[in-house]
């Protein structure tokens, strides 16, 4: 065995510099490469699917918009073929759990596995220092998963592009608002921000619960609660909604509520009651020449002829980016807070 000389201790102490941060790069990669590989596989499969379905969607859209003589039967076919791809739009909701899955399966085990297997007693007694160890790991992993989510959200934004085009209404192509709750957090900066917050929730759950599987479950539950609360309660209040009595609300707007007045007095919210419709705007008898069902616009026109006014409270599509930055901003702040709390817990957690 090699004999070793003992270095001069006092000199060492005087110039005691911490172990450099960059040393954690290999440590983090080696210990979490399986989780990161899983994320890469998930996002890779997702990207392929988005690319394949998205190309069909874009082709159908390009054909429908390029068609001249919009009223011709050929153009109507192209339009209905694009509108018939509604499944492509509805499939988008399948993307909603992706940030939660990435966050839960990468974030929750970082500390929970150490606690569960007892290896924290190794990791936290090394010269690197335990809170520095936690901070380095969490920040590095957070940056990686956020960047990966950001990259995939560019592809998601491209995928949905045909539905957000402003000219769709005149061509009677399906159009949705980019602010629609089901889609808002899938593109822009929100997707990456939600992934980051899921990761941060996972890290905190890991140190609090100390078991991998319960921490993952808790992360998914907490994330779902937060996402639903943000979509249903919070987001519509980022900026004061606009209100209009016009019946021509652009289809790209996100309508948050509708109500009716008559003679300056509040009448009812949402859809007109059945008895009112039967009184003023009876539906044409079945089997009549005009088979088409009365649209909400024609109903509104009918009711407004009888002195009713429809008010619409909405967020215009032009507010998409301000909303994205507001949501991205508070999610980033929340994530930093959660990661700071996690590191603080690692630092003071008595075992």
């Amino acid at each position, binding site marked *: *065995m090699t004999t070793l000389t*003992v270095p001069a201790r006092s000199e060492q102490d005087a110039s005691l510099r911490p172990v450099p941060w960059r*040393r954690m790069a290999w440590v983090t990669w080696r210990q979490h490469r399986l989780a990161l590989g899983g994320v890469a596989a998930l996002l890779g499969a997702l990207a392929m699917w988005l690319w394949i379905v998205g190309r069909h969607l874009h082709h159908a859209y390009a054909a429908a918009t390029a068609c001249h003589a919009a009223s011709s039967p050929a153009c109507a076919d192209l339009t209905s073929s694009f509108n018939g791809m509604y499944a492509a739009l509805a499939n988008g909701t399948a993307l909603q759990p992706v940030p939660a899955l990435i966050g839960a399966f990468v974030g929750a085990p970082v500390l929970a596995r150490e606690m569960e297997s*007892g290896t924290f*007693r190794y990791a*936290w007694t*090394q*010269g*690197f220092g335990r809170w520095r160890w936690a901070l380095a790991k969490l920040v590095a992993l957070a940056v990686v998963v956020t960047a990966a989510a950001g990259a995939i959200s560019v592809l998601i934004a491209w995928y949905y592009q045909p539905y957000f085009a402003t000219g769709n209404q005149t061509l009677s192509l399906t159009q949705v608002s980019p602010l629609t709750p089901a889609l808002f957090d899938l593109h822009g900066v929100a997707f990456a921000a939600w992934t980051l917050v899921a990761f941060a929730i996972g890290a905190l759950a890991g140190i609090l619960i100390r078991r991998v599987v319960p921490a993952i479950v808790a992360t998914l539950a907490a994330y779902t609660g937060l996402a639903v609360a943000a979509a249903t309660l919070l987001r519509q209040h980022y900026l004061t909604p606009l209100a209009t009595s016009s019946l021509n609300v652009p289809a790209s707007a996100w309508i948050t509520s509708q109500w009716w007045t008559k003679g300056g007095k509040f009448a009812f919210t949402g859809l007109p009651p059945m008895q009112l419709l039967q009184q003023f705007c009876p539906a044409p008898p079945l089997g009549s020449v005009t088979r088409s069902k009365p649209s909400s616009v024609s109903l509104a026109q009918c009711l407004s002829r009888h002195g009713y006014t429809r008010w619409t409270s909405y967020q215009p599509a032009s507010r998409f980016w301000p909303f994205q930055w507001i949501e991205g901003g508070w999610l980033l702040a929340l994530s930093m807070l959660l990661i700071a709390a996690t590191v603080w817990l690692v630092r003071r957690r008595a075992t």
Partner: protein
Amino acid sequence: MNVVEASGLGKRYGRTWALRDCSLAIPAGHVAALVGPNGAGKTTLLNLAVGLAAPSAGDVTVLGGRPPGSLAALDGIAFVAQDTPLYKNLSAAEMLHLTRNLNRRFDRAAAEARLAELGIPLQRKAGRLSGGQQAQLALTLALARRPRLLVLDEPVAMLDPIARHDFMATVLTAMADDGVSVLLSSHVLAELERVADFLILLSQGHVQVAGEVDDLLASHRVLTGPAAEAAKYAERPVVHVRRAEAQAHLLVRATADDPVPPGWEAHPVGLEELALAYLREPGAAALPGPARRRDAEPSEVTT
């Protein structure tokens, strides 16, 4: 310099005190053994010393006044926890690389040489090594950090006699070659006789005995005499009474110069015997200096 110094140290989990009113100083250059029954607070004391736990009361410092868990303390202390936790999916070589990245000093050549000597394959996953090999790997990682204090929590509890012997031989070699101070907890008393030169006995969360082994052995005697006369020593500092037929064996606090009563014989005491006697008498204490506690009434054990 004291490698560990505690005053009034206490640690509470919920409403139970795992360690209470613990005052001790372990000087550098020793193999200090922390002995006590299960639940006596050995692991708690070690966790406090390496900074894994924070005290509920009192103070503890390491390596001459450093707070445990600080970078300066972590740099100089290598800890091998109970059941030697390693990342099971990492190979021995990867564990070396990991530990090297997490520390300022790491003697990779020495570590690899030691693993080769022990016949531990570098490419094997830590989880697939035998218990003895895992313990040796953990010890190798700890020693390669060139610590000033090596803390081992129940290092040999899970090992067979050969692995146990090899493990302790490695510790003693490191101590002799590099001047590493060692603090280890154990309830394998037989092992201690060979390696420990400083003894700390813990019982029910209190420090019962703390001191250099040579001093402790020099200040204790076993008196053997007629059982009928054993009661005469009730006011003497008797630690433990063992009766066998007509004879009684008394472990007393006395030096070789102290007078022996007529009809009695005095013998020196062994470390294992001394430790056992104190462990059987949780009320008795032998502490250096003013921390000395009033001797409790000895109880009798008939054999």
